[in-house]
Every structure is written in structure tokens, then in C-alpha cells.
């Protein structure tokens, strides 16, 4: 059974790109250990001979006619941008100073 340590929660916050506060980390550790305990029992019945289900309604993949359509305009596409310039999204720099 997994037990969540403080370091693990910090690491998961990093992977999920959430700058968790110390208080949140402590609370999450408690919550997740309780939740993990109660959901772990799925492993009891998930034996090797059972295939996994991704989509409950099995649909065959199919092709549709390739018909051109008008997409959003550039103006519409950037209308919700937190920062934009000359019709483009403005992003902070990708790399650090070093």
C-alpha cells in the first residue's frame, strides 16, 4: 500500500506544476493517505486475465469526409489571452538565467 511522504507530495506538486504551500502539502499528505487506503482494494480483483477498459462504448474508428471549414479567426483565437502582442500569445521566457 502506498504511503505518501512529504517529499513525495512536493515532487507530485512539481510534476503537476502547482506551487503548493507548506500548509497544503501537510493537508494533502493526510487526505491522500486516507483516500489511497480506501481505493487500494481494486487490486484485489484486477487479475492478469481481465482486460482493461478505456472506452465503455466500443466504437470502431472511422473516417469522415474531408470537408474544409472556417476555423476561429486569429482575433477570436487570442481574444482570451492573458498577454498578447501583434496577434500572438506572449509567453514568459522558457529557460532560466543560468
Amino acid at each position: 500500500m502506498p504511503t505518501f511522504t512529504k517529499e513525495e507530495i512536493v515532487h507530485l506538486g512539481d510534476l503537476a506544476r502547482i506551487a503548493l504551500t507548506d500548509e497544503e502539502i501537510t493537508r494533502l499528505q493526510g487526505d491522500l493517505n486516507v483516500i489511497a487506503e480506501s481505493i487500494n482494494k481494486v487490486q484485489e480483483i484486477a487479475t492478469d486475465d481481465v482486460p482493461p477498459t478505456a472506452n465503455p462504448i466500443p466504437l470502431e474508428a472511422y473516417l469522415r469526409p474531408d470537408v474544409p471549414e472556417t476555423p476561429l479567426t486569429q482575433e477570436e483565437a487570442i481574444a482570451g489571452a492573458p498577454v498578447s502582442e501583434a496577434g500572438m500569445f506572449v509567453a514568459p521566457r522558457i529557460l532560466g538565467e543560468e
Partner: protein
Amino acid sequence: MSTTEIVTLSAAEMAAKVKAKEVSSRELVEAHLEVIEAAEPSVKAFLKVSGDQALEQADAFDAKSDEEKAQLPELAGVPIAIKDMIVTKGIETTAASKILEGWVPPYDATVIKKLKAAGMPLLGKTNLDEFAQGSSTEHSAYQTTHNPWDTERVPGGSGGGSAAAVAAFEAPLALGTDTGGSIRQPGSLTGTVGVKPTYGGVSRFGAIAMASSLDQIGPCSRTVLDAALLQEVIGGHDKRDSTSIPEGPRPMVAAAREGMKRDLKGLKVGLIKELGGEGFQPGVMARFEEGVKKLEEMGAEVTEVSLPHLPYSLGAYYIIMPSEVSSNLARYDGMRYGLRVMPPADVPQTAANMMAYTREAGFGDEVKRRIILGTYALSAGYYDAWYGSAQKVRTLIIDDFKKAFEKVDVLVGPTSPVTAFKFGEKTEDPMAMYAIDITTIPANLAGVPAMSIPAGLSDDGLPVGFQFLAPQQRDEAMYKPAAALEAALEEDWNGPIWQSLKTPWLDGLGK
């Protein structure tokens, strides 16, 4: 007609009056806007009321010729409220999250396009738990919605706003989204009808994604027939949703009308053995058992059916759902839309740090909890043990349903083990909140359609929900017995359940 007389009609009755030219679509919208203004201080179901747009849509419908109107679906001209989890072009859409505050979508969801094409005005956007994650609507970043039956209590969740709006006569109809019970459980707690269609039966294009393999849009209403009429408007194939079933809507309206004749001879009904016992309030079980008896009196053959893997569904759900949540909510990164928060001055001003501070500020506690849990379940070394195992459980549950439906036509059980609870009663204990969904989650895991209708009031005077479940792509199979039970119960009650609802906000409304 007075405002109260108008808004207490069913959607089908409103549509008939529009057709007979006894009332215009504008008058329907105006009556509901009046109720919204009077009810909102105590109910708080809406995040945004789009009155001006609704009146414009109503006028556009009223201006159509009789020939044009005749081409439209039966509900044409009847207004509707929309859960704020569904995108609406030009109307702010937030998913009740700070991370989307102020976002105005540049496109309409497919279901919204269909409603507009049907001439159904949009009254506004209803409250929900942030990103539909919760069972009480207490996790909204903006406000708490109050249950019209007792404003000290929650309306259920995540679609508490849509259910409360319909229960309080602020809207005759609403759309919800149901990932683990978010349409049906609020329906149960507010004495309204809530339907989760077959997975793939209604397009998800423009429904803000929570857990894509479980999410489904569906109707909220006060009658079974109204839900059927609405599901036929929004259902059917959509090329923009790759999981959309390439077929038209099922004949649900006809099934509901057939059911109203109250003849269920030959119908085989299965009582789900695993839904009951510990955690189920006696008042809930009493109303449920009375409902079962009614079905028998109308000629249905009732037998107990076991779905042995059902006790594992809560565990499987709380692995699959957070995993898909962590993946779907990765898109809120402060780059293209929504909130952006730059890091404090002593932290490097990089894109990665901007994302981390944006997501820390923009997401609430429950959403963070699920993202972190899902990130863990999907991470290397744990994927097979967690996500892989949960997907196998899903197969076993689907097989349980298949076997059950070889023996019976529909399955029944209580919609929620409890009636509406008080604010704060379950927010401190996530597992207590999660456990309420034990009755509704199996349908999402198996992709089968399910609906909740009012079964009466419990000994605490609060509504109880009766749930029907049908085989995949056979949604009409549950509408017939649901409409029959509704008609039989209303005969006993001498009218609809809402006769027992106190509505001080309707007092003194326009002539």
C-alpha cells in the same frame, strides 16, 4: 397568466401554450427572469444571468412564421439554464473556477448550437463545484447554492445550480454534466428529474473536460417527459466528438408518453442487491421500496439482481477520475486563456514557474487534491498498479451489467443514500463526501444510461430520488417505467412533489 402560473407549468405545457399562441417565448423568458431576480438572493443558483441575450433569442423565435416554427422541435421557444461547465459563445464561462474568471468563449458547445437552432433561449449559467469536482456545490470558487427545500442545506453536486434553478422555478429546464452522478444526485436532493444519457449519446464537444471517459451532458427538468423532450433535442451524432455514437437520438419521448399510460405488464425490473444497507438512510429506503411496490402494482416483475463487483466501483472511480482530471486540467497553464500569475520577484520569471504560481492561485483545494492524486496514479511505477487495475475493474463492472441485463430490462436503486445535508457537514472529510456517490458512479463506469426521479419526501421532509438504469444505447428503456412511476406517485400525492415546496420568492410576483 400570472408569473407563478407560467413558471409552474412543465416545459411541455409551456411549449403547448407557445404553439397555441397563448403565451410568447418573450413572456416565458420575462417570467423566468422575474423569478430569478426574486429567488437568487436566497437560492444563488446562477453565476451569470444572460437576460438580454435570452430576450433577443426569444424575440427572434417569436418573429418566425408558423411554417418556420413548425419545423422546430416541440420545446421551441421554451427557455433553459446551462451549467457553467458548458461553453457558450459570448457568455462568460468559468467552470466555477478562478482560473477561468472572465473567460468569454469564442465558440458554442454542440449542445448549445442545437438549443439555439431549436429556438430555446439561454437564461444563464448555473453554479457548480469547481470543474464539476464535488457532490455539494460547496467547492465553487464563487458562491454556495442553497437547496430550495431548505436553504440551510446543499443542493447536491456538482450540478447544484442547475438542479436548484429548476426546483425553484427559475428555469423549466437545465443542462448538466454527469461524471459520477453530478446530474442525478442533485436531482435527488432537490426533488427534480436528472438524466445521464448513454456515454456517447450526447456530444461532449464544448463540455469542459473533467474525466473524458466518464463525462456526459444530460437534462435536468421537473418531469420525465420534459427530460425526454430535451434529450432528443441535444442527442445524436457529432463529428466533433470522437466518442459520439454515430446514430440519432433514441425514441425517448414516445417511451415516456407510453409510460404515462401506467401499464408495465411484462417489464422485468432488477433490484440491485448491492445498493442498500449501511449508510443508507431508513427514510430513503422506505420511499424507494414504496416506489418498487408501485412498479409491481403496474404489472412489472421485480427480482433481486446481484452485480458482485459494484463494491469496487468507488475505488476504481477515484483512480480513473483523478487521473483523467490531472491530464485534462494540464491545459490551464496561463498561456492562451484564463488566469496568469507571475512568480514573486525572488523566483526566476520562467514559463514553468508562471504555470506553477498560476495553478496554485487559480485552482481550489478539491481540484488540487484530485490533480495531485491523478498525477501519482499515472506516474511511472504506479501506473499498472493503479490506473491499469482500475481499468480492469471497469471491465468487470461492465460485465456485471451485461449479465444483469440478460435477466431484466431495467435496474433500479436509490439515487443517493442520503437526503440533502447541511453546509460544511462533509467538506472536512473527502472520503465521506466521495462515499455519497456510491449509487451513481457505476453507471458512469459502465457507460449505461441512468436517471433519477422524485420518489417522495423522507421523514425529514426532504426529497428522495429513485434511480433507473438501462442497457447501453437503450435510453428509452428507462423512460417508460420512470414516466409510469411518476404518474402513479403523483396520483397518490394529488399532484407533483413540488406542491410540498415552500416558495416565498414566488409570493407577490407579477399579475
